[in-house]
């Protein structure tokens, strides 16, 4: 049996984008982004263990304009992935599976992830 010849289900680009499908692919994209953020976290931890000089180098990069942009994006990705992950956990429990509630929770996740990130950055500055 040739497993290579098995039919695949159609990919995302076949379908018209909807809130639910866009949010689903965004969960993956934010997950991959956060994996890259993990790389940054490991670098910071390593720099911290190396001593004050290397730590200040890392700090200088992160507090620069591009560094802050990266941190802001990662912050949003984290809040989105966390909120949407919670949405998935509720679904796993069989809660909120109707069309209406999946759209409502979808809007809630999208809006709250932006709002929480902007609120946090405004309070800090």
């Amino acid at each position, binding site marked *: 049996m040739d497993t290579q010849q098995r039919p695949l289900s159609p990919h995302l680009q076949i379908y018209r984008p909807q809130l639910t499908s866009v949010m689903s692919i965004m969960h993956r994209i934010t*997950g991959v982004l956060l*994996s890259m953020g993990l790389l940054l976290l490991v670098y910071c931890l390593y720099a911290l263990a190396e001593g004050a000089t290397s730590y200040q180098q890392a700090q200088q990069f992160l507090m620069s304009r591009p560094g802050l942009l990266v941190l802001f994006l990662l912050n949003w990705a984290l809040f989105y992935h966390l909120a949407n992950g919670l949405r998935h956990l509720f679904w796993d429990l069989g809660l909120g599976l109707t069309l209406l509630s999946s759209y409502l929770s979808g809007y809630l996740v999208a809006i709250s992830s932006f709002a929480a990130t902007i609120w946090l950055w405004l309070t800090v500055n």
Partner: protein
Amino acid sequence: MAPGKAHRSWLIQRITAVLLIPLALWFVWSIVSMLPLNYQSTHNWLAQPVNSVLFGSFLLILFHHTWLGLKEVTEDYVHNTVLKSFSLFLLITILLALLALSLHSLFSLRL
């Protein structure tokens, strides 16, 4: 993948997700409360046993969750069997090396 194994991955992904909710919020809250994250204050914070243990747990669970997530994405988008196995091997090698480096860094901090 064997059906039992897929179910186990599914379950562990959910368990690590639940554990990461409080840990990630604790991590963000700690970072924000320590701004602008001076060397001495960050070092002292992470050298404290409570924070060190929490952060170590956070890293272990986060790395496991990252592995399961990136594995799922790789398995979905890389169709060639040989390339898939190679990608997964590369992925686990990089993640384990990064985990080792971060735990080594964490343990090397002294008060």
